[in-house]
């Protein structure tokens, strides 16, 4: 028996260990891509030292939408209506614009039943992190094609998808999201950096994460399988995230990397791979996505980033205190106001 003293649990910058960042035990299938994303979210919030209670987790319906129960136990969660988390999240932010909102959705949830809300959320640049756990099928209803399934993709039954997919990143760039990224649940390093950057970003961050459904869409002929991603993942750049509180001298070589400073002072380093990619160029971003799609490749990385676009709550000109917490004196006009109004209708 060794008598080494128990090492104290590792704590983050606000002195918390991982426990409050974890959630209840997952009920998803073992190996499901969604579980890996949950793990990365736990790490990201912990590493950034974000108070768990300051986060609000919202989702629609689906296997993916269940996952807010599996991280950040000490944050309020709202697993609402299929496809409509953009609306509940927007409402929650209207009530309290200080909340750090994160929405977890699925490809069915976002690209089919909820597409109307999704595009309007984009247009409003609602300040939240929006993750699409994209497996090309409806997991929870047992494997029907979703609207992100690629043309020619095969179901287990052999059925072939005859329709073109909806690309949520293209929509995001086109319609006003200020942060648009794509990643793969199996790429720990990239996903982790992207999630942290998204959390630090002030504005809407849409992240399309290819997240294989091991039960219904991980076979030969699927374009959302682990095997397919292994062969077709095409990173745009290597992503490093340096939080604002890190005591690191950021040092990079011009021409080899790009540095973007985020709202809270954190820095994003995008290291050049095949090409030098400028994520602030919207037209170029749309182009590379279309090109990649033509080649059958899955482009990953931070595809579009605009750091100073006004967010929806800023546009509304809300007072500093959360609306939810305003006392009666500030929300019920005085008696004289009503007397004046009554007089106007006499």
């Amino acid at each position, binding site marked *: 028996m060794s008598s080494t003293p128990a090492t104290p649990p590792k704590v983050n910058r606000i002195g918390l260990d991982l426990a*409050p960042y974890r959630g*209840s035990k997952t009920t998803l299938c073992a190996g499901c891509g969604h579980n890996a994303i949950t793990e990365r979210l736990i790490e990201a919030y912990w590493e950034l030292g974000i*108070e*768990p*209670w*300051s986060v*609000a987790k*919202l989702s629609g*319906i689906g296997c993916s939408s269940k996952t*807010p*129960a599996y991280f*950040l*136990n*000490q*944050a*309020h*969660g*709202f*697993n*609402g*209506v299929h496809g*409509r988390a*953009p*609306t*509940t*999240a*927007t*409402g*929650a*932010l*209207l*009530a*309290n614009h*200080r*909340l750090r909102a994160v929405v977890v959705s699925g490809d069915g949830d976002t690209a089919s039943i909820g597409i*109307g*809300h999704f595009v*309007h959320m984009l247009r409003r640049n609602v300040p939240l992190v929006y993750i699409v756990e994209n497996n090309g099928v409806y997991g929870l209803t047992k494997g029907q094609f979703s609207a992100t399934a690629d043309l020619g993709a095969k179901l287990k039954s052999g059925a072939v998808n005859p329709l073109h997919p909806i690309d949520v990143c293209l929509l995001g760039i086109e319609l006003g999201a200020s942060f648009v990224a794509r990643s793969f649940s199996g790429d720990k390093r990239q996903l982790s950096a992207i999630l942290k950057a998204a959390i630090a970003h002030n504005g809407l961050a849409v992240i399309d994460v290819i997240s294989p459904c091991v039960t219904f869409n991980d076979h030969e002929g699927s374009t959302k399988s682990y095997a397919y991603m292994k062969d077709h993942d095409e990173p745009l750049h290597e992503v490093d995230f340096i939080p604002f509180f890190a005591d690191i001298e950021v040092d990079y070589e011009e021409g080899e990397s790009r540095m973007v400073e985020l709202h809270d002072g954190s820095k994003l380093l995008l290291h050049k791979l095949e090409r030098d990619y400028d994520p602030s160029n919207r037209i170029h971003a749309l182009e590379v996505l279309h090109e990649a799609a033509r080649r059958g490749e899955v482009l990953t990385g931070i595809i579009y980033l605009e750091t100073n676009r006004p967010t929806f709550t800023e546009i*509304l*000109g*809300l*007072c*500093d205190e*959360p*609306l*939810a*917490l*305003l006392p*009666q004196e*500030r*929300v*019920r*006009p005085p*008696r004289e*106001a*009503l007397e004046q*109004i*009554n007089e106007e*209708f*006499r």
Partner: protein
Amino acid sequence: MQASHQPPPMPAEQPQRLPRGGRIVNDFSIQVATVNGSGSQTANLVLMRSIFQMGVPVSGKNLFPSNIQGLPTWFTIRANRDGYIARKKEIDFLVAMNPESAREDVLALPPGAAVLYDEPLQLTGLRSDLHYYAAPFDRLVAPVCPEAKLRKLVRNMIYVGILAELLGIDPEQIRKALYKQFGERKKKAADLNWGAVQAGIDYARSNLPKTDPYFIEPMDRTAGKLVIEGNTAAALGCMFAGMTVCTWYPITPSSSLAEALMAFMERFRRDPETGKATYAIVQAEDELASIGMAVGAGWAGARAMTCTSGPGISLMSEFVGLAYFAEIPVVIIDVQRVGPSTGLPTRTMQGDTLKNAVLSHGDTRHPILFPSCPEECFTMAIDAFDLAEQFQTPVFINMDLDLGMNLWMSDPLPYPDKPMQRGKVLTAEDLERLGGFARYRDVDGDGVGWRTLPGTPHPKAAYFTRGTGHTEQATYSEKPEDWIRNIDRIARKFETLRKHLPPPAQFLAAGARIGLVGAGTSRYAMEESRDQLSREAGIEASWMRLTAYPFPPELEAFIEQHERVYVIDQNRDAQLLGLMRLDLPAHCIAKLRSVRYYGGLPLDARTVTEQILAQEVQG
């Protein structure tokens, strides 16, 4: 056939039905028939207001088509010395300005009615039992309005002048109403219109000898009152309720509520120091989104609302069920119109009574408030926000187009006398003291659990809100006993809530064997019909006006006191009666009879009286 193709006017015979005593004072209806988009609204409002300013009880109803320009529109004003302000079925004085509808409008008049018409329409040949007044509007308007472009609008003021002269409306009151209507900033337009009123008065004085019996004479029954639309009053109620988030999607007849709200909030709810908004109003992409945002906001602690009409309610169904089950406060104002689907979108109906009571799927029940006048639109909006937060549940306010979009006399809106009731919310300090909480545990025995708001800075604050089965601790559960315990507690909450609703109004007539029951705008026809039954048929009747669902205990007592109770519904399928059937004991149900109207016009007393008499005769 166009009226203008009729043969030239024939010498009018004396109208057959001359008034007894010659004069009918402060008891008649005026209908102005114009073309939608012709700008007659201002003229009609001035006319109505000047009668109101003379102290005569009055109501104004705008019967308009679902288009922007070109279709017929009617504005009906009823002046009544006894204060009956329901729509009157018969029109006593028609102003026929619309060539399209003139013929039909004239043919529909009761004998003895009066018609003022645009001379080229040549209506006198249609019937010989009416009082006709012709005026050459185009010729009259030209000299008072040199700018040809504006004549279409200004010519309406001429009929106001003519009516003033014929009916004895004080021109000074017209002038006052007109300048109030235009406001300080549009003084030039007001001057122009006042010129047209005077031209009308002058023309009538020299060319139109009075033959009809209708007169307005000053009274003192409107002192201190307002003239206001229900939607405006409801918007004001929301503002004084301390509403902080309103999300909505345009739909007639609720849009003007949201628009009034925007205007008032802009004026009264910006922080005096910073100029920033203490509210958010968002026009959503559809009603699914407007309710979703309101529910999200209610969850996060805002006083949240949406307003809509029937088609929007249908889209909101799933979210309302979730909010019921997840116990989230939200106020939903439904300004009802004629459906299904687009139906008659500019006509009135009480068509969502049943639907709103049980909206969504599974076991759901929602409280509904039924305002009947602007004052109640105001006070019940405040009640609704309090109830929603106290009971953590969606609360409906069922208005209708008649109430929302028409003009009503109203007592001044009363300043709320009690503080906002924010319900059971635990703060970080509370949690520190208590050491934690269980979201769905009935600790107080009233069915209502304590909640926390997202963002509460405490490690024990969070809970998980879900539409799935859950335990008292808000954890996932599929156990039948957990499900039943939870859904039963929510039912208990509904029972507690019943005691917090505004009380019904009732009138118990001595010796009455029958009773009338109605909600919302049905009250006007109901109360007038009661008097008609008594006066014309010697039948005494009591009435009860319901102000809320779930129904009050007084309803059962009221039914027990009467042999037969007529439930008034503004829909085909007797929805209010149906809802009573679901909730009342059998001996009460057996006494219920139905009175229904569903043509899309505001309910009138005659219709109610006739239906009751027909059933009373059958026994």
